[in-house]
């Protein structure tokens, strides 16, 4: 589309989204012009559509080992987070069984802003656990913040910006022991975990298929069947009364196929991603001295996430210059209107002001290879140096 003299277009922002794979597109196609009925209709068109929806739901349930009625289709990953938090807390309010929510300082805004709104507009109590320099919460902090009126703990499986993986099985075990529900935003991690919800102590899990080569415009919420959820979207009673709206059968089927393929390929993808991620991390850390640092946990991190911060550099400028050089990446403090804020996550892990605007996130995917990484390693130091030069020259 863009006419540029640089023909290279290296996509390194798989944490933002991924291309839809052809198997998924093929699986979705019939549902637009052939099987187009409304799944709620009595007639055969409806029945066939319902069957497609059923297939999608069953497939996903089998893949993550839960019951079919525990899968709720929603409009996006953020909606899944919203439904988990609001659904549970309002139900607790309705039954008078508690008022307190615990979450962490580095959750996605879909969790944190929802929590803030619950606190500010509806009088729920919210505790926000701090994180250490790697972005992990302390299990002791968690345990001591659980109160008799705690209803829900929400801690993400892995952080989108810095890639750090949280000890969600331990967190789930603590929650279980104390009779508190546990929700995990697994949007970044869904394709990387070995799912077994029969064994894993999770009550609610959020996923977004567009992160694993499925379509945008659909999200998944797993909710253990005995959990009461007050729905945010009311009306036609779809999704067992938990989320109204004519079901997007095509996308549900696409989501199921995407998840199936992602989990089938999980091990080989993980190996592929780790190699490229390590090549990136080693190469970048070596090229820079103490004006660049790895952010997030060095080993306990998503296999595809290499994130850094550059001292006294604007992450926004960096990704702009990188894009012109043919490398598409992201930064925790980028902004389409040129008004970047310091990254909340980098502040939470204790970085000072000189670092918090300089984030760079590189997330590899299936389409990336060693040669592309080599190119980035060659080009990145140049770009950072040039940006530093500009600062020096205009000072």
């Amino acid at each position, binding site marked *: *589309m*863009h*006419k540029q003299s640089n023909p290279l277009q290296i996509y390194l922002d798989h944490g933002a989204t991924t291309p839809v794979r052809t198997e998924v597109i093929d699986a979705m196609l019939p549902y637009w012009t052939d099987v187009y009925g409304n799944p709620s209709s009595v007639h055969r068109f409806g029945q066939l559509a319902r069957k497609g929806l059923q297939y999608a739901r069953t497939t996903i349930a089998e893949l993550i080992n839960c019951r079919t009625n525990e899968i709720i289709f929603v409009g996006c990953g953020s909606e899944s987070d919203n439904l988990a938090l609001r659904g549970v807390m309002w139900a607790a309010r309705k039954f008078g069984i508690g008022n307190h929510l615990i979450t962490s300082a580095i959750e996605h805004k879909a969790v944190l802003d929802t929590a803030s709104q619950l606190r500010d507009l509806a009088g729920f109590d919210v505790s926000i656990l701090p994180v250490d320099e790697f972005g992990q919460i302390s299990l002791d902090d968690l345990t001591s913040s659980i109160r008799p009126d705690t209803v829900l703990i929400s801690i993400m499986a892995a952080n989108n910006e810095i890639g750090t993986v949280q000890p969600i099985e331990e967190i789930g075990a603590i929650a279980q022991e104390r009779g508190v529900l546990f929700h995990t935003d697994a949007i970044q991690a869904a394709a990387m975990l070995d799912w077994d919800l029969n064994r894993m102590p999770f009550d609610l899990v959020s996923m977004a298929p567009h992160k694993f080569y499925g379509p945008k415009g659909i999200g998944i919420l797993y909710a253990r069947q005995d959990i009461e959820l007050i729905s945010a979207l009311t009306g036609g009673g779809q999704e067992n009364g938990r989320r109204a709206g004519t079901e997007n059968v095509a996308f549900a089927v696409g989501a199921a196929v995407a998840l199936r393929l992602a989990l089938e390929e999980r091990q080989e993808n993980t190996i592929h991603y780790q190699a490229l991620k390590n090549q990136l991390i080693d190469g970048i850390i070596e090229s820079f001295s103490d004006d660049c640092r790895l952010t997030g946990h060095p080993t306990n991190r998503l296999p595809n996430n290499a994130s850094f911060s550059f001292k006294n550099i604007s992450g926004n*400028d960096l990704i702009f210059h990188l894009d012109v050089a043919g490398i598409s990446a992201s930064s925790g403090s980028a902004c389409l*209107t*040129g008004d*970047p804020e310091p990254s909340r996550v980098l502040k939470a892990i204790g970085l000072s002001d000189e670092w918090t605007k300089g984030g760079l996130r590189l997330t590899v995917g299936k389409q990336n290879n060693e040669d592309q990484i080599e190119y980035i390693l060659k080009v990145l130091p140049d770009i950072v140096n040039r940006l530093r*030069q*500009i600062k020096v020259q*205009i000072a």
Partner: protein
Amino acid sequence: MRQPHQNPRAILANEENSTRRVVVAMSGGVDSSVAAGLLVAQDFDVIGVMMRLYSEPSQGSETKHNRCCTPDQMADARRVANQLNIPFYVLDTQEFFFNTVVQPFIDGHVSGLTPNPCIACNRSVRFDFLLKHALALGADYLATGHYARVSDTAEGYQLKKAIDGDKDQSYVLHVLGQYELARVIFPVGDYTKTEVRELASQLGLPVALKSESMDLCFLADGNYHRFLVENAAGSLQPGPIITLTGSEIGQHRGLGHYTIGQRKGLGVSVGQPMFVVKKDPANNILILGTREEASKKRLIAQRVNWIAGNGPTAPIMAEVKIRYRANLVPAIITALDDNKARVVFEKSVFGITAGQGAVFYQGENCIGGGIIADEVI
């Protein structure tokens, strides 16, 4: 680097254009949009960049935007970029713009000057900061929607007035040197404003019918009196108004509210028209005089830039503009040490204001200029 040419239409269809990268400074307005469109039509490798400049801080729950960097303007610029099929980025320039343009504007008013912030912006922000970014991106040129022309001659680059004399912006571009002129393109300088609007329609640009404002870009509402009151309140104390002979004839509201040559709104009545002649910020006094007393025959310019690189070694004859909208007045200019110049006018000129630009022309060429100093030698 630039193709030598005598044809005033600067952008020629040229096979080599596609290997040349140009960063276009886009504002969402008609001029910069058409500039981008012309470059794309001539097959350059074009990248659109909009600078996010300083906006006044939020008051209450409304984020106050300046006239220029509103989300709407940005959306317009982005739409134009999409239409032209070029990438579009926003460069955060807020702090730098505040430090190099806004703060000096405030400080200037506090010391009794009337700065022209567009000159500072072109000197520091557009043709230094942005130019450096453009070059760092591998661009060969930076293009803007300014009305001006550059020509390449055996003696070097020349800055010429735009074809449309009414829109000519060479005045604020007098800060450019040979280095910058080798690296800038002003696509719309060869067209009249009417032609530019037609081009916008022809190119199908969504901003063809936009109106343009002439106010300072970083003001939310064009009201610089309010801006000064809010940002330099301490220096805007009432004080005495006196004549050149020392008689006190009234009170002023704060020196920053007045400009040299101002006649209206002085609140005095002495039987003849009185004009602001001078400000004395040290004593907070406003000095009025007759029209003759408010006219001077000479000025000293400082921070003088000569387009050719070096100043003339002997006094030269030229025409001078003492304000963006002033008429050209004949004068003799002598280059002095320390990047200064003395300008002696043929006839007294009314309203010479320290802080404004004094820009020198010979025919179509802008040959340089500087900032009018608060001293007369």
